[in-house]
């Protein structure tokens, strides 16, 4: 009798479960569609702020949008929303792009012979590339660019001393970054 | 079954005779109980015989040798009371042998006395024809008249037997030197009841080892005599027929059954290895279906109902109808199996109500 009751109840339970699954799947799909729309807007060079519950990839897309336009400070304010979601590949690519943006600034300063401006940017770029490699050692472009900026400072021998300082105080790594919110890693 | 029943409607005066059917039912059940003391393991045979008695129909018992056909009939005759006569069917039995007994008397003169059928006069209650298929067709035709009209002509006058019931038996083992009953004769029998060895192991053991069953004369003699009054049966039978009602639905149902017997293919009946379109030559006569309803009414009354249900029809269907179905000759050798399947499927296919 208990088996019989189970038999007559099972299809109803299955329908409920399948309906729940379907609505969850549709909900997810709708969310991804909305994200994709933001992606496409960003890709077509419109500055659209991602919603609060955006995925790390979408926040990264926004950060990338800002970084290629040299709006590094704005992009760095998104760090918590990217790193906090725990996807190390996105984290690595975000830091890599930050490093690239810093490196571009540094190279630009070097080419303009503004060496004083270049040095802090190189330091920040190195830090960003290291953070990127910590998150994802497999990001070979980050290794390469870290190598590039490392040689950039080797061209400036006085930097060796600076590097020793950062090593000694690793916790203060980010304090040089303007606009970075406090209290985040 | 509602408590408003036969007695009430009788007092309402719808033309029913002034007898107590409830008393009759009590007697009928007592009769069954009495017969069942001698005949064990055959309750449905006893029930059918009771139905036949109250439906005022003749019965042909059929079965293997030694299953107790004769014992059953003797027990019924004994419990019924009334004059009882018995004759053995043989090849050389002639119709006159049933009516006249010719012999040489003490004085050496030839004398002719009334034969077995007439010996008890017109009060004869049961005429028991043993081994009917051994008798010649001439005998069959006399029996036909006796059954159909309950009368014979002898000694230059007509004899009428208003209370007569004919029981016949036939063993189905022997086919040598036998004369198959003509269709008309078979149609006159209300029922053809198959008697089989009881299946129940305890009952079979009892039948074989209990000395009570070894001496049939004592067994029958030990029964109460005349539980039923054979003279009242006609009237009781008529009262039953008028008091037990059949609804329109049931009438349609019986007609549908009849149609199914006549054209089984159309009713969706399928029997293995049988071409249903050519199986049936004749699927029950109107007289047969009338007998079916009569028997069904009696059965409903015995069950204490005042309405006929499909169950009643089903209970008496095979005994009443089976021997009235005539099959294509090529199927006759397998008749028993085919007819049983046909009757069973008829009730499986025809919707009720």
């Amino acid at each position, binding site marked *: 009798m208990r088996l019989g009751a189970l038999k007559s109840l099972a299809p109803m339970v299955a329908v409920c479960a399948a309906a729940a699954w379907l609505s969850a799947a549709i909900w997810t799909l709708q969310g991804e569609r909305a994200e994709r729309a933001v992606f496409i807007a960003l890709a077509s060079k419109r500055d659209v702020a991602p919603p609060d519950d955006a995925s790390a990839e979408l926040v990264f897309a926004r950060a990338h949008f800002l970084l290629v336009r040299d709006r590094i400070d704005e992009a760095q304010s998104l760090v918590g929303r990217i790193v906090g979601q725990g996807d190390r590949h996105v984290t690595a690519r975000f830091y890599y792009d930050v490093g690239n943006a810093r490196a571009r600034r540094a190279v630009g300063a070097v080419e303009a012979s503004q060496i004083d401006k270049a040095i802090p940017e190189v330091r920040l770029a190195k830090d960003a590339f*290291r953070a990127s*490699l910590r998150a994802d050692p497999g990001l070979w472009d980050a290794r390469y660019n870290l190598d590039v900026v490392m040689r950039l400072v080797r061209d400036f021998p006085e930097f060796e001393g600076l590097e020793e300082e950062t090593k000694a105080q*690793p916790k203060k790594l980010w304090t040089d970054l303007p606009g970075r919110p406090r209290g985040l890693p | 079954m509602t408590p408003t029943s036969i007695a009430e409607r009788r007092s309402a005066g719808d033309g029913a005779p002034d007898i107590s059917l409830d008393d009759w039912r009590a007697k009928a059940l007592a009769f069954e109980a009495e017969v069942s003391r001698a005949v064990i393991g055959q309750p449905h045979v006893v029930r059918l015989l009771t139905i036949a008695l109250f439906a005022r129909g003749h019965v042909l018992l059929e079965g293997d040798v030694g299953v107790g056909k004769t014992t059953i009939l003797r027990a019924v005759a004994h419990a019924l009371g009334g004059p009882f006569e018995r004759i053995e069917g043989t090849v050389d039995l002639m119709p006159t042998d049933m009516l006249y007994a010719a012999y040489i008397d003490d004085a050496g003169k030839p004398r002719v006395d009334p034969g077995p059928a007439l010996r008890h006069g017109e009060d004869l209650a049961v005429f028991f024809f043993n081994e009917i298929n051994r008798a010649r067709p001439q005998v069959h035709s006399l029996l036909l008249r006796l059954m159909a009209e309950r009368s014979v002509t002898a000694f230059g006058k007509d004899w009428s037997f208003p209370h007569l019931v004919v029981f016949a038996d036939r063993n189905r083992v022997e086919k040598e030197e036998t004369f198959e009953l003509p269709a008309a004769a078979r149609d006159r029998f209300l029922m053809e009841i198959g008697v089989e060895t009881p299946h129940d192991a305890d009952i079979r053991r009892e039948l074989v080892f209990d000395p009570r069953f070894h001496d049939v004369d004592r067994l029958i003699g030990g029964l109460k005599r005349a539980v039923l009054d054979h003279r009242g049966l006609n009237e009781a039978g008529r009262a039953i027929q008028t008091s037990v009602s059949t609804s329109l639905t049931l009438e349609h149902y019986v007609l549908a059954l009849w149609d199914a017997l006549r054209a089984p293919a159309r009713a969706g009946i399928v029997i293995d290895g049988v071409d249903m379109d050519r199986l049936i030559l004749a699927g029950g006569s109107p007289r047969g279906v009338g007998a079916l309803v009569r028997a069904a009414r009696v059965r409903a009354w015995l069950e204490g109902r005042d309405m006929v249900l499909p169950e009643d029809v089903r209970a008496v269907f095979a005994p009443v109808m089976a021997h009235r179905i005539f099959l294509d000759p090529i199927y006759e050798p397998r008749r028993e199996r085919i007819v049983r399947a046909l009757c069973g499927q008829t009730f499986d296919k025809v919707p009720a109500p």
Partner: protein
Amino acid sequence: MRFGERAARFETRPCGPLPGVRSMIAKKPCPHFGDFADPHAGEAAAAGHFEARSVVAAAALAVAFALPAPAAAQILDRSMTAPQPFGVLLGDVFTLKTRVDVAPPFRLDPSALPKPGPVTYWLDLRSVSSTERKGPNGATRYEISAEYQTFYAPLEAIEQTTPPMKLVVVDDAGKRVEADGASWSFITSPLRPIAATAGGGSAYGLRPDAAPRLPSLRSAEIKVAAAGVAALLALAWLAFARAWPPFHKRPARPFAAAVRSVARAARGGEEGWRSAALALHRAFDAAAGRRLLGEDLAAFLADRPSFQQQDAGIRRFFDASRIAFFGRGRPGADMPASELVALSRSLAAAERAT
């Protein structure tokens, strides 16, 4: 990609000297220990040490520590396993496994193990973990697995040495004994030639930005499709179980079909009651596989335990039907149409449970 993975097939190759080439290999790229922290000064001693332990070293990439005197009583044995000590690039991750046998009652102080973070300006400790099990001679054997990442950007292939790990053993009395773990020297190579830096502008050529990837909706769409199919299947199952259209003619669910016709017919007065009862009778016929009469009920119910709960209702229906169809009662007098509908509902439910 981690360095350790790239080097996986080297892991089991003994770093220790192979016969014949021992002295060449033993010079540098092997783990060496606190006692010989300066590889140049201790070269001869190291070679001698390797010679003495050659059997052990050839068996696995494991080399025993030379024990400093004060710790000898507590730390019975030390050895370290490391990947191949060359071809290490900027950003590579490698794992050094140190095995330490500690004599009771001393035990390794896990809080004294180094914390993940920068070790030197070019080296990060990514993680450290230790396991503990029973070692030989009643000692406790600790396996310390430390994962490092190098950020050293060499201009040419150059040797680097990891700082030794500090091991601290304590006993219940609070006595502390410190010992140095192994350090590891390896050859790290540049990613690019030096010449490139002399080329001017191209030296600053950066790899392009990592572009955000337009997320694919495919997996979400597939999930929706799968969920949709599952929902349809479940619905079909439900419809099948309850004999809803298109399964309303399902032979095994006569009562489910009867519920509909009974409910429809039951509204139509006496005639409706009759057709409702007929529909229910047909359902019983279908369930029994033949025409079911009132007298057959006992056998019918005996075969169908799930219907037995409806025993009383079924018998009531058959009695009411007898009176309506074969007796002289009015249809529905004994069993109102609503009861008919209720009975067919519960029979349909019972039928699903068979």
